[in-house]
């Protein structure tokens, strides 16, 4: 079955941001962000500046999906981590359930440190998202519950 929509409360969002901020500091990374496997960016921390995190999120998800497809073909469930090392900038991606933890780092850090810190924090993120997925959201007003056809039309005017 398709995954359920992700609904993120304000408090949960700030908790995630705090976890990402700690990872960023511990791993001495430039940017850390969390993406769902469908390519939606959930939260980011760090020197985002002009970095196009939306595109990066989509491409990271595509990358993981493609390598996951390759894994299946050779009889593996998935490849839980991916690393791409450039001359100056590098990316490390870890699969955490239905999420991807993406760390962008440069020569101030190292792949070993980023891997270690990402792994340490993965359990915490996984637990947080289990809670989010199992949460009761009946009290949250859907912003679309009272939407009218005119509201929708106005988006295209």
């Amino acid at each position: 079955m398709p995954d359920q929509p992700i609904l993120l409360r304000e408090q949960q969002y700030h908790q995630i941001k705090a976890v990402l901020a700690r990872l960023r500091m511990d791993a001495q990374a430039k940017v850390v962000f969390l993406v769902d496997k469908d390519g939606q960016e959930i939260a980011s921390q760090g020197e985002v500046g002009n970095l196009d995190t939306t595109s990066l999120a989509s491409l990271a998800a595509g990358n993981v999906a493609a390598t996951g497809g390759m894994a299946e073909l050779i009889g593996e469930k998935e490849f839980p981590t991916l690393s791409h090392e450039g001359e100056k900038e590098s990316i490390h991606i870890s699969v955490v359930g239905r999420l991807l933890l993406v760390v962008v780092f440069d020569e101030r850090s190292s792949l070993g440190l980023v891997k270690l810190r990402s792994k340490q924090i993965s359990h915490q993120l996984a637990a947080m998202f289990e809670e989010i997925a199992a949460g009761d959201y009946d009290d949250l007003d859907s912003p679309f519950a009272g939407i009218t056809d005119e509201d929708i039309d106005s988006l295209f005017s």
Partner: protein
Amino acid sequence: MTFINYASREINCKIVYYGPGLCGKTTNLQYIFDSTAPQARGKLISLATETDRTLFFDFMPLELGTVRGFKTRFHLYTVPGQVFYDASRKLILKGVDGVVFVADSQEERMDANIESLYNLEENLQSQGYDLLKIPYVLQLNKRDLGNIIPVEDLAAELQRKGEPVVEAVASSGQGVFDTLKAVAKQVLTELRKG
């Protein structure tokens, strides 16, 4: 899969343009990209071959505006149309909220349309979706060409469930935003249902 962030007050939805090779999926996205203000859209990412055939996907984030205080963002994707990229097409359908099927109106492409539509139904099923239940629009593209099949005949063959049918010439923009609007409206209506 819709993502609603109550902290940043954003809603993100995923729309996939599907269809046979060279039917104009990328052209739809390119037109939307070219005719949208830069502040309303991100980059158009194309993972294409050296001959500009889509290899994996095209991607473009588009912000349509604010509804009830929430920024509404659509992530538009295309799939590679060529038959042998089926594994990639399956992956791109993951988490989809709405689908546009771009049909090529030319007579000689009818078989390719039918094959691609069956492939869409199968691949949706493999991801746990049902074409009859998800937001869906049929776009009949290339209506400016000479050797095209009448709209009624195309609809009779390709329409699945009374979905909106939009005539288009994606290269000049005709029908491109009507298509997007038709699918976005269904996606938002689904959200209203909760």
